[in-house]
């Protein structure tokens, strides 16, 4: 019998009212200064009143609030692993580099929280080369990446291996998920990442075998064709995409890298919007998490833009579509 999310979704409906809408985000972007933007968010209930009002504190508090709420609604957070796999692989990369260089860096500065595996466990697995501490697939990739780094000293190659492993794990987690939203998220994440990789490789003139090694296979894109297109540069990638389900990405790519990044995020949010009228499944919870992450990302961009004195137009063109 499938799990009942009626109570959880009703609570999410109540919380959706407090998500920042498009006009609210525009208002934030129109703040005259960094401090005004911070106070705008604080007035909307963002942050922890007991902490000093800074962008880091404010955004960290919001991320914490999101996961505290989801933790109240769903005891088994493994359903949302698909959102955290990238954090695990980021920590794995950091642990491997740390072990390779022998540097002594405070763990909090290297590792991100929120992954499914304790960063200390990842670090110990790498330091002691005891890969059995890691899940099977991750253990295999960790051993391969660390050995590659030890033999070649090529940090970029190590990153490429682990980035691809992260995307493959995300894609596999999406395939295993029993909810459409989680499956769509995984697919869109991998497709967007593959396109970005192809564009970047094309821009810096990477050879075909490197591109093929970096691209994560997925059913939605022909990675061989994408890799060959990457050799011809951004125009060629855009031309390849125009013949796929992701044709609108081609226009965004031609516009600018920032426009493409925005297109990717907007696509995910658009795919999540039908969840606003779904009262029974885990879908609205997943959509709420992504909506929160999206608004936190936008708020971070605005705050960072204001802090660095960027013109409003540049900040605005980076704003994403909001869920509400």
């Amino acid at each position: 019998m499938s799990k009942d999310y009626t109570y959880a979704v009703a609570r999410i409906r109540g919380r959706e009212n407090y998500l920042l809408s498009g006009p609210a985000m525009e208002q934030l972007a129109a703040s005259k200064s960094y401090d005004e933007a911070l106070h705008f968010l604080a007035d909307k209930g963002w942050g922890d009143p007991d902490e000093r009002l800074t962008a880091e504190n404010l955004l960290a508090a919001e991320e914490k609030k999101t996961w505290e709420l989801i933790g109240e609604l769903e005891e088994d957070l493994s359903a949302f692993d698909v959102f955290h796999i990238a954090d695990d692989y980021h920590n794995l990369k950091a642990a491997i580099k740390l072990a390779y260089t022998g540097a002594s860096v405070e763990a909090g500065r290297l590792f991100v929280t929120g992954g499914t595996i304790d960063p200390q466990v990842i670090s110990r697995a790498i330091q002691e080369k005891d890969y059995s501490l890691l899940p099977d697939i991750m253990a295999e990739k960790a051993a391969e990446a660390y050995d590659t780094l030890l033999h070649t000293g090529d940090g970029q190659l190590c990153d490429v291996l682990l980035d691809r492993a992260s995307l493959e794990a995300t894609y596999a987690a999406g395939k295993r998920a029993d909810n459409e939203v989680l499956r769509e998220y995984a697919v869109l994440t991998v497709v967007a990442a593959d396109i970005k990789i192809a564009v970047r490789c094309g821009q810096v003139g990477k050879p075909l075998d490197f591109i093929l090694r970096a691209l994560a296979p997925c059913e939605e894109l022909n990675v061989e064709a994408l890799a060959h297109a990457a050799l011809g540069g951004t125009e060629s990638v855009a031309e390849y995409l125009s013949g796929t389900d992701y044709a609108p990405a081609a226009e965004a790519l031609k516009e600018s890298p920032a426009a493409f990044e925005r297109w990717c995020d907007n696509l995910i949010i658009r795919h999540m919007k039908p969840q606003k009228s779904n009262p029974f499944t885990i879908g609205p919870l997943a959509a709420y998490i992504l909506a929160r992450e999206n608004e936190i990302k936008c708020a971070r961009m605005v705050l960072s833009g204001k802090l660095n004195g960027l013109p409003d137009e540049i900040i605005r063109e980076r704003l994403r579509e909001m869920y509400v």
Partner: protein
Amino acid sequence: MENLGLVLALSGAAMAALLAGIGSAIGVGMGGRAAAGAVTEKPELFSKVLILQLLPGTQGIYGLLVAFVALSRIGVLGGTAPSFETGLAYFVACLPIAIVGLFSAIHQGKTSVASIGLVTKKPDQFGKAMLLPAMVETYAILALLISILAIFNL
């Protein structure tokens, strides 16, 4: 075998009360879970979501009504024990509210849940939100009418 008519009629009455009651319990249960979620976030919505939660409860009452009327005519609470043919007729007469009551209450419960979501996001839309699950009630009322008309004309 001489009481087969009574057994059939009693089975019909039991089905009406049971199935419609089960449907209502499921529907009200669903509504209750959604209402609890809504009230957790917005306690001021309690009276509104309570009404929405209770809407699927009517099918159980209709089932009880039909069962009561049937019992009062077949020699249990009044009337006389029916023959086999009449007992079978009572059984069939009870089926509309039993079956429609079961399914309509479940679907009304689902619609109530959706309406509770609507009220949670837009409390000023309560009137419209209440009408949506009330539409499902139409079919339970039609089934109730047929069951009652059939029983009274036996």
